[in-house]
C-alpha cells in the first residue's frame, strides 16, 4: 500500500528551466493538494483539486500550474524556475470533507 508517491525526491534546476513534480495516490481519494514548505513558514497551499478535471488556486499559485486528468495523478508544473521556488514540495490527498490529509514524503527542489 504505497499511499501518496512523489517523484523526484531531489532536483536541482537552473533559473529559467521548467520541470514537473509527479504525484500519485492509490487510495482512490478525490481530493488532492500541493503544498510548499519553507523553513519557519509552515506549509502553504499552491493548488488543489476536488476531482478529475477540477483544479483551483491556493494561497501561492504564481509560477505553478497543475492538471488533474485522472483520480490518481496530480502533477505540478514549474515554468521558468526562479530562486524563490527553492523549497520542499508536498503532495497530499484526502477523501474529502475532512482535514485528514495523507502526505507524500516530499520533493526537495533547489533553483540556482
Amino acid at each position, binding site marked *: 500500500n504505497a499511499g501518496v508517491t512523489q517523484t523526484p525526491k531531489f532536483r536541482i534546476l537552473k533559473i529559467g528551466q521548467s520541470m514537473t513534480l509527479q504525484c500519485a495516490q492509490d487510495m482512490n481519494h478525490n481530493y488532492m493538494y500541493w503544498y510548499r514548505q519553507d523553513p519557519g513558514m509552515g506549509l502553504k497551499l499552491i493548488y488543489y483539486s476536488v476531482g478529475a478535471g477540477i483544479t483551483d488556486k491556493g494561497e501561492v499559485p504564481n509560477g505553478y500550474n497543475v492538471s488533474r486528468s485522472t483520480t490518481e495523478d496530480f502533477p505540478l508544473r514549474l515554468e521558468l524556475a526562479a530562486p524563490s521556488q527553492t523549497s520542499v514540495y508536498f503532495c497530499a490527498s484526502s477523501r474529502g470533507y475532512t*482535514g*485528514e490529509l495523507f502526505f507524500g514524503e516530499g520533493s526537495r527542489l533547489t533553483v540556482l
Partner: protein
Amino acid sequence: QQQVKQSPQSLIVQKGGISIINCAYENTAFDYFPWYQQFPGKGPALLIAIRPDVSEKKEGRFTISFNKSAKQFSLHIMDSQPGDSATYFCAAYDSGYSTLTFGKGTMLLVSP
C-alpha cells in the same frame, strides 16, 4: 486572508515533562482543527484532531483543548518522550473550500 497563528516557534522539554503548543485562528468558518506531526525528511502525518463542538479530546498522551469563544486551541503532550521530538503543526480546515490552513510549526525537542 485566512490565518492560523502558532506559538512557540521552538520548545525544549525534559523527558517526562509536559509540552504545550498554542494556536489561534480568525476565520469562524473553520470547522475542523487537526494537529500534524512531522519528522525530519518525512511528510506531515495526522496526530489528533477536534471539531469545534467539543472542548477537549484526548488520545493517549496527546490532548487537544479547544476554546471556541476565544478562537484558540492547544496541544498538550503529557510525559513527553525523546521520540516525540518533531515539528508540530496546528491547522484549520474550511469544508466550504475544502482547504487546510497550517500554522508555521513548532520544533519540539525532548531532552533525555
